[in-house]
């Protein structure tokens, strides 16, 4: 197990190297100049050129790349062009919030999906099935920002149960922080549970058709035991893969939710940085989400064999 883990970890290094190259090239292909954006519509040429020099943007790309990678390896991701803050600190600060929301929401969505998916598969072609599939399909048919705004309007504005804008870090006031996070988490949980439920149902139906489930039933085990012991562990693997994918894509996709609920998270940081051509921030964010994503994948791959005995750890 340990050598396998070490090997997998080593294998992530070239992946991250590729990520770094892609990030760097991609962001520089984008038309638009961070200095022009920063100085605005009335800026003169001389100050733009001066800013270029200060930011190191006048140097050749390969030199810029090597400088950036050299610093990144030591944990220094540079400073934001727009605000002058250190990028690494910015990312750590924002990531805590995003990670909390995404982890909780995906956890809840997975739990919902397991229950709903198993129920629907077990009661296949009944009203239960129709209800679960209908609800899941509806949830994945609603744009997340739309659902978020609806919840905001109803629970924030009409009923006045929850705050509408703002955010306090949990370190300052845990109870308030929680209140601010209820709606974003609810929105994400609902929108993400749709696709997970459908995947869980599909694979549970597969497993229910397999011989050993028939055997288990023939042995006289209760239906709940069959579902818990035989169906769930064997049907969960594809859903687990999807959970990994969801976690990864939410690191960026949550930007929409963060915008609706005005949360200072990583997604919004990245979108704003792309729009402002704040190269160091974009690079730093993409690199660090890349790192997080690779780690999530690694974790999924390591857990996968536990749920799918057909895939052995090689």
């Amino acid at each position, binding site marked *: 197990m340990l050598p396998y883990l070490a090997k997998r970890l080593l294998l992530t290094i070239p*992946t991250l190297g590729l990520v770094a190259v892609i990030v760097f090239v991609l962001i520089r292909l984008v038309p638009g100049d961070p200095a022009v954006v920063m100085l605005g519509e009335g800026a003169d040429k001389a100050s733009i050129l001066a800013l270029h020099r200060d930011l190191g943007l006048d140097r050749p790309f390969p030199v810029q790349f090597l400088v950036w990678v050299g610093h990144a390896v030591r944990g220094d991701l540079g400073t934001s062009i727009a605000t002058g803050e250190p990028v690494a600190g910015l990312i750590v600060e924002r990531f805590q919030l995003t990670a909390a929301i995404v982890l909780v929401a995906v956890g809840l969505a997975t739990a919902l999906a397991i229950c709903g998916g198993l129920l629907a598969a077990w009661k296949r072609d009944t009203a239960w099935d129709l209800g679960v*599939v209908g609800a899941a399909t509806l949830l994945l*048919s609603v744009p997340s920002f739309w659902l978020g705004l609806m919840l905001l309007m109803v629970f924030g504005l009409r009923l006045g149960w929850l705050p509408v804008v703002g955010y306090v870090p949990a370190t300052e006031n845990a109870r308030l922080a929680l209140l601010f996070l209820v709606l974003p988490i609810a929105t994400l949980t609902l929108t993400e549970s749709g696709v997970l439920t459908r995947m869980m149902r599909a694979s549970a139906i597969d497993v229910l058709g397999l011989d050993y489930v028939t055997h288990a039933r023939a042995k006289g085990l209760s239906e709940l035991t069959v579902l818990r012991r035989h169906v769930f562990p064997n049907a969960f693997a594809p859903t687990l893969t999807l959970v990994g994918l969801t976690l990864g894509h939410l690191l960026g996709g949550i930007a929409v939710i963060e915008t609706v609920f005005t949360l200072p998270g990583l997604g919004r940081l990245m979108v704003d940085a*792309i729009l402002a051509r704040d190269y160091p921030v974009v690079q730093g964010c993409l690199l660090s*989400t890349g790192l997080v994503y690779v780690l999530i*994948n690694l974790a999924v791959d390591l857990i996968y064999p536990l749920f799918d005995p057909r895939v052995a750890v090689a």
Partner: protein
Amino acid sequence: MRLRPNALIGGLLVGALLAVIALGLVWTPYDPIAIDLDHPLAPPSWRHWFGADEFGRDVLSRAMVGARISASVAAETVAVAIGAGTVIGLTAGFLRGWPDRALMMLNDAMLAFPSLLLALAVIAVLGASRNGIVLALTLAYIPSVTRVVRGAVLSIREREFIEASKVSGDSPLYTMARHVLPNALPPVLVLATGLFGWVVLSESALSFLGVGVPPPAPTWGNMLAASRPYMETAAWLSIAPGLCIAATLLGVNMLGDALRDWLDPRDAP
């Protein structure tokens, strides 16, 4: 075989969508870009079935044209992403060894970018255009397809009939086409239907962030994004595009389910 309700409802919804798209090619009630500044935000009436937007443009006409753009963006994206992803995933999963490792490394590198952000960055490079969005979303979703296909292949190739096919001397290509691909199809189809939904939703999310198919092209996402300021005062603006998105995805997903049941190799002899 009997027709499942899934197939019936799904078929009807998708058929209706195609009919609307076809009709929109030759006729819409109004010119979708013509403005009527004297009657902005007109509520639904006989003149405007779905009401009029903030420029007095007919929402129904725009939703009809939007159907064509939104559905074709999604369909092209899904087709290319599924095609490319399946080929890569099959190759990697079946060959294993170094090709698998190399492909998966690149795949992981691509996958390491959240799809929305990757799309955003690609769009920023290409400039927001219809084809740019298709390319951006395709690039963003190929890695997910690859990963799911490869996972399915890895699981399938451990089964007895693959071993049997190998033992009986079939060429790897034949085994792949005859045994692996059909067995990998159901999850891919479920994924494809899901993907269609994700793409339609991604398009609306990109529009929400202001980088979708460039407005004033009336995609559903654009219409929904533009209706936001009027959620309380002119709710009808969001009903038409919202309904279109929900109905389309419902139809496609149900058709996908029906297709999956039908294709499931275990039901065939």
